[in-house]
């Protein structure tokens, strides 16, 4: 009993329940459609000349990479500053635009040749991401501006600046070297590798250094942390910087996926998905303690839900309705008054049982 209770009160309980639910829906649907129950888990090599891994699981991992990368940065930001960075989607699009513009060189809207080595373009994108993160970080950490208002600036400006960088064009870089980032290395999709590397690095840094603890302590009480000797301002700043970097990485991956930089389409509503991933992961948006694994499971859960909905034949336009209902169910279950209600009920039940026992003795 106590083990079960421990498990249900674990932070990862809700995210895992979500994943299991999504898997179950898929399996039930597949069986109902007359397909074998393991259809969802089937991974196979395609028949092309250069075989690549395919299957629904692979597609979820592949498509969910960007949100997973964003979720890393978002988790830190939410934890340290008790606010959300709503600019990540726009920053993604700006980074993609800068990366493609640098790669395309002389402002040709369509190119197959790289004007500069690939690494320069990628670095340019990442640097812009870091700059955006630093801007947000400065406003939030140094000027004490509410995170949402501070990031609102780049939310509306970054996409517009991207359009300006592109001279109102969609820049196509139809180059095989560039396409690798969003394509395949051998049989494995590259975004999965990139996301895995990011996650491993983040986990290592947070586990092996004190950064994770610092971030949590600043998130729980900024003043107390400062008095205890932490540089709260710097820590919050670094969190936003990392978030910007994550946005840069996913922006470059997203543009490579479509081998172009479309300012209006890249990263659209990704900020919502990233925040949602953090919330589904059982992290409080009020800051403080965080669980990175939860956020990442949350990110892939969102993608699994999306893929499942397409699988069930729900059109992409209608999908938000179901997403909304899901969010509400998730947050209502986790809401403090609801939790308190259930806690009261189970306490009353325990009391009842104890009284009965006492009476029987």
């Amino acid at each position: 009993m106590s083990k079960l209770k421990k498990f249900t009160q674990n932070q990862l309980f809700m995210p895992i329940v979500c994943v299991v639910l999504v898997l179950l829906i898929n399996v039930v649907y597949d069986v109902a459609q007359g397909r074998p129950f393991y259809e969802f888990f089937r991974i196979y090599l395609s028949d092309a000349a250069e075989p690549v891994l395919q299957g629904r699981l692979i597609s979820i991992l592949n498509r969910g990479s960007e949100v997973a990368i964003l979720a890393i940065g978002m988790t830190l930001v939410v934890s340290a500053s008790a606010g959300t960075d709503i600019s990540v989607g726009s920053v993604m699009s700006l980074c993609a635009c800068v990366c493609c513009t640098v790669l395309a060189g002389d402002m040709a809207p369509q190119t197959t040749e790289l004007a500069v080595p690939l690494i320069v373009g990628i670095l340019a994108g990442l640097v812009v991401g870091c700059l955006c993160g630093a801007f947000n970080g400065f406003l939030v950490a140094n000027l004490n501006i509410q995170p949402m208002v501070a990031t609102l600036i780049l939310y509306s400006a970054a996409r517009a600046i991207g359009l300006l960088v592109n001279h109102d064009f969609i820049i196509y870089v139809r180059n095989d070297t560039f396409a690798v980032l969003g394509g395949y290395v051998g049989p494995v999709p590259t975004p999965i590798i990139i996301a895995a590397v990011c996650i491993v690095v983040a986990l290592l840094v947070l586990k092996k250094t004190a950064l994770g603890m610092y971030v949590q302590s600043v998130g729980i009480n900024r003043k107390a942390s400062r008095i205890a000797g932490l540089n709260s301002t710097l820590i919050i700043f670094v969190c936003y910087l990392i978030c910007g970097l994550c946005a840069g990485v996913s922006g470059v991956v997203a543009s490579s996926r479509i081998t172009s930089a479309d300012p209006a389409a890249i990263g659209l509503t990704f900020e919502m998905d990233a925040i949602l991933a953090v919330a589904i992961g059982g992290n409080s948006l009020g800051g403080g303690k965080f669980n990175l694994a939860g956020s990442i499971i949350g990110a892939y859960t969102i993608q699994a839900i999306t893929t499942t909905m397409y699988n069930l034949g729900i059109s992409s336009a209608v999908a938000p309705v179901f997403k909304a209902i899901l969010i509400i169910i998730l947050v209502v279950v986790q809401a403090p008054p609801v939790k308190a209600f259930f806690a009261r009920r189970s306490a009353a039940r325990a009391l009842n049982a104890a009284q009965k026992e006492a009476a029987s003795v």
Partner: protein
Amino acid sequence: MKKPANALKERRQMNSNTLLLLITIALFFVMYIAGMIIYTDKGFSTVQTLCNLFVNNAALICVACGMTVVMLTGGIDISVGSLVALDCMVLCYGMANWNLSAPVAILLVLVIGIVMGVVQGFLVGYLEIQPFIVSMAGMFFARGMVSVISTDQLSITADINQAFYNFANARITFPFGATINRQGVAIYPYIRLGVVIALAVLIITFLILRYTKFGRGLYAVGGSEQSAAMMGLNVKRTKMMAYVTCSLLTTIGGICFCMNGLMASTTTADGFEMDAISSAVIGGTLLTGGVGNVIGSFFGVLINGTINALVQTDGRLASSWPNILTAALLCVFIVLQSIFAKIKEKSK
């Protein structure tokens, strides 16, 4: 000796908020007059341009009023843009396919708005869920419902609903400020009924915030929930009512939006929520709650609208400039706010 010092400090604190409001108002006039001087030859100095500013932003004025009410309690509602889209879609689809009469259709969207507000308000007020997440769900839901109703671009023509069409196209013509066109006919400036609705909403919201128990309660809850609760205010109910008010005003804004455009699609009013939030912030409303005023938000909307109008009148600038300029302005304003807040803290 203590009392006068305190009073002085208090007056200074009052001043910093009023000062920001004054800066906002002054900025609007400076921008507008500068525009009139620079773009005289392009017709920016006519009275009609000013009227158009109101006609085009009538919906945003209503929505910004609603947003201010929610922001005063320290919350936020990012579902307003999608709700405006849903209102437009229900109006268009309802009149075209369900043969609703105009008043019934308007009543229907008002009910939808209130229901959205009650649900969101309940989740935020009584279940203590973060407003951002709740209204994000509301945003997805409303935007999705638009697609459920129809993914086509619908429009209202005179054939579909004569009454609504006439109502939307009605002009209120001013007897002054006429421009003479090439044929030598004097054209008097006009506004549409949406502007009247928006201004009425503005004045009523202003009066409610200033003089009613509910309005003062909003400020109290935003200032400090704990103190408000200790004073005997029903914090949960006040918060819920704030969201209901916001959704109701947004719905009125949605009706104005539909009257102005007479059409609906899945991308209607994209990014409207951020326009409303930035207008309120430029107008001096703090996202932390407790400080703000609809008059500020009104001028915030006008500043946003003026930037758009100036870039459109110029015609040479890329389409992305209004966004960048608004963002830059927003940046300046929130930095100013933060500096004022720091000064206030030091004087304590």
